[in-house]
């Protein structure tokens, strides 16, 4: 790798699109390189404990969100120093040391377990195709589960979203919707359809007659059916967590 390219990537290491996960450097980097996403330092040369502490913490102490989060692992800089552990602990405990050091002792259990991030959203949301807000568009796909497929096409999803919002609004008004099972009644569905018709603005293409106008009443009926089904599923479920985990297919 050319040196300019190396430096270029080193400067970008803080960005999420830069795939570098390990940087090997000779001696400690001096001033001018302070990256907030440095979480693990593995010092291998035999420096004295004090130098080791000072140089390590000088590099990776900045917080990526600018403040502590309350999540220990997100707020901590790890200095991996099996062979120097006690020496470093003792050095940090000296009265003239300005720095307090936490101690982490990895257990056999921790060393064997591997964790993954699993993102789940209610079946209801995935079936209706409700938008799920991704904090980071570049993030990897959540591992582990398959979500229920959406039942509507793109335009129908817009209608389903409106219908769902109307149903949620009705739920707060017991005279309109005493319980979700009332959604089966024709007069309740008619009221939902009326609201949806008022709020729905078709895309320009539909006005030009390029595609067919979607069947509002069919989408409303189907949305009502899914809401009833998923709400009852949730109530039957004994564990509040399982009802929010997508079923595996």
């Amino acid at each position, binding site marked *: 790798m050319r040196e300019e390219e190396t430096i270029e990537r080193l400067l970008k290491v803080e960005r999420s699109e830069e795939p*570098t*996960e390990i940087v090997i*450097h*000779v001696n400690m980097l001096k001033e001018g390189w302070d990256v907030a996403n440095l979480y693990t330092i593995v010092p291998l040369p035999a420096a004295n404990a004090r130098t080791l502490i000072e140089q390590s913490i000088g590099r990776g102490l900045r917080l990526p969100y600018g*403040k502590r989060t309350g999540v220990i*692992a*997100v707020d901590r800089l790890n200095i991996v120093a099996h062979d120097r552990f006690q020496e470093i602990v003792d050095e940090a405990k000296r009265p003239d040391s300005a720095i307090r050091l936490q101690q982490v002792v990895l257990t056999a259990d921790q060393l064997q377990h591997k964790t993954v991030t699993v993102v789940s959203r209610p079946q209801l949301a995935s079936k209706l195709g409700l938008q799920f807000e991704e904090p980071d568009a570049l993030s990897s796909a959540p591992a582990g589960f398959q979500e229920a497929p959406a039942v509507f096409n793109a335009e129908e999803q817009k209608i389903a979203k409106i219908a769902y919002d109307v149903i949620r609004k009705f739920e707060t008004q017991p005279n309109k919707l005493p319980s979700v099972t009332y959604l089966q009644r024709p007069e309740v569905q008619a009221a939902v359809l009326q609201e949806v018709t008022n709020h729905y603005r078709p895309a320009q293409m539909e006005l030009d007659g390029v595609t067919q106008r979607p069947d509002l009443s069919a989408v409303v009926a189907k949305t009502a059916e899914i809401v009833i089904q998923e709400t009852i599923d949730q109530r039957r479920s004994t564990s509040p967590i399982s009802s929010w985990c997508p079923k595996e297919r």
Partner: protein
Amino acid sequence: MLGLELTATPFIETTRGPISFNNVIFDYPLGRAMADGFVKEPAVVTRENFSPIGKSAEPIQQIKLEDGVRLDESVKVELETYARQVGERIVKPFMLVIARDTTHAAELMQLIRSSASSRGATPAKSFRSIRA
């Protein structure tokens, strides 16, 4: 005319050691910033029942690298989980390995690459060595 300077190094390096500035009007040392929660909490890490006695440099280095990678992988998961829970951007962590010299750095890169491929690790991972 009033000049204000902010510095992390309020001293001048001389051959007889550092000489502190004598016109400091406010001193906020790192230790206080740590206590006040403005920076990460540094932690020194080891493995349960680890003893360097009887071990040569190579296996110790291997253990440190392996545990470093494990830690960083777990931090990666914690960071993603946190970001998704609070709706923040996902921060991608990285690990810094300090080598003795450029020869050592090249050896480390070789070692990490070969152990990564033997574990079938993700090709997205990349490594580099910087000349000091």
